[in-house]
């Protein structure tokens, strides 16, 4: 077999694998969205109707007319924005402090705790958090969710940000200092602009994690701070018969994510690569 021919065959095989993987990746998304616009009867037929069905928006209007749904969607958006802002701000500062102060006494224990906190299953913290939030009187409030989400995502965000801080040359800061800039000015005018790609990546990640978070709100939020994932999970107790509204609710959760992914794919990929490699 000639070299060129072998190369062609290997490329063809690669494309076959990629196409199969892409199909498997996207089919559940396709199935969610199509199920959400099907008539109820069309969700129960075999063979399944993939494309030729009579579309309807009935399921979406059922979801929008569920009592409290507006509140739930608003909660999810506000909590995501609030905790992402809090978390990214604190972790950017923390990452900068960690990588620019080498003789910081508590540095090693701090780094260890960043790893450990990430490793502890959040479910372990639920019993104490439940007691704390109810005793502080913030159980079932958005503020409590914002603070808890920000805390839970801090280790990851700090870790990700410190890999970006590591890429900023120290010489730049030194020359700023020689020109008479104070520490705050150096950080604000020299370091921060260079960290913007990293901040973008962390923002997207933390926002995604927060948007998707289920464990904390299912335990620590009742009706007034309920978020979208908790609302969606309510469908499993509904005896599994109404797939249309369930798919509509799921679509409302995943469509924003899909849009963000496509728009911000560069920041996402760079964040994932550098964050993971930092190990």
């Amino acid at each position, binding site marked *: 077999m000639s070299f060129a021919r072998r190369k062609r065959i290997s490329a063809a095989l690669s494309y076959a694998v990629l196409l199969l993987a892409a199909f498997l990746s996207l089919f559940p998304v396709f199935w969610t969205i199509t199920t959400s616009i099907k008539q109820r009867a069309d969700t129960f037929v075999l063979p399944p109707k993939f494309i030729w069905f009579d579309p309807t928006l009935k399921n979406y209007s059922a979801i929008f007319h569920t009592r409290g749904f507006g509140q739930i969607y608003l909660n999810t958006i506000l909590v995501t924005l609030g905790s992402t802002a809090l978390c990214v701000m604190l972790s950017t500062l923390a990452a900068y402090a960690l990588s620019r102060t080498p003789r910081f006494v508590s540095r090693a224990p701090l780094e260890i705790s960043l790893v450990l906190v990430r490793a502890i*299953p959040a479910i372990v913290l639920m019993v104490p958090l439940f007691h704390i939030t109810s005793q502080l009187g913030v159980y079932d409030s958005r503020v409590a969710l914002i603070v808890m989400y920000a805390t839970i995502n801090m280790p990851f965000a700090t870790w990700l940000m410190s890999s970006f801080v590591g890429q900023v040359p120290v010489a730049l800061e030194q020359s700023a200092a020689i020109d008479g800039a104070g520490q705050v000015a150096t950080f604000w005018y020299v370091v921060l602009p260079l960290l913007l790609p990293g901040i973008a990546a962390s923002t997207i990640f933390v926002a995604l994690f927060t948007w998707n978070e289920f464990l904390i709100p299912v*335990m620590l939020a009742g009706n007034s701070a309920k978020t*979208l*994932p908790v609302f*969606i999970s309510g469908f499993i107790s509904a005896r599994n018969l109404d797939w249309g509204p369930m798919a509509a609710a799921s679509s409302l959760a995943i469509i924003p994510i899909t849009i963000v992914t496509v728009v911000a794919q560069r920041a996402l990929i760079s964040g994932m690569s550098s964050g993971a490699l930092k190990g």
Partner: protein
Amino acid sequence: MRTDPRFWDSLRTTLTLIAIGLLIQLPVGVALAIILEKNLRGTRLFRTVLVVPMLLTPVAVGLIWRFMFDADLGVINWALSLVGMDGPNWLGARWPAIAAISIVDSWQSVPFIMLTVLAALANQSKGPLEAAAIDGATQLQTLFYVTLPSISNVLLVIITIRIIDGMKMFDLIFIVTSKGGPGTATQTLGMLVYNTGFGFFQTSRAAALGIVMVVLIAPVYVLWRKADRVSR
């Protein structure tokens, strides 16, 4: 608690899910990364598409997979029937349910492994690869004797993270098998803590289980340090 069979059962379920997950996800993730690394035309598009599953809300995708796994009306058993296979009642018995969870978990986790390996491959030095090519090594030989050893520390990091994630697994089980069903057949440690503390309201017992979980996961830190030291 040491004598409580529910604890040992859930520990076994958790470890089984982690092991099956790694056995499926590592080879698939590495293979996809190697294919993407060839930089064929359209690689960027494929990379974006293949990343999508890891970003989606686990609760939402868990529900839709549950719908697809439905024994009578699910699209998966329908597809199996097209090729003449009789699909199992996925969520009705222990092993099919574990298989179903592993499939959904792999679907969500393979992209993470793929991207991490891809980043590691992009960083590896080209010298050894060229040397292997000059020495006449086949593609498979190069893969096993040059490429994989050079990214072994990254693979170790991935394994560490996946073990941690496996211990944490909660959302998918909550949704796909309704909190560990059928019965308690797929109840993982995390689910056991939840069911004990928030289902039966035995909070101190749940807290004790939580401590045991932390102790169980502590050795992972050693693995992490090892990977970290190699990578520096």
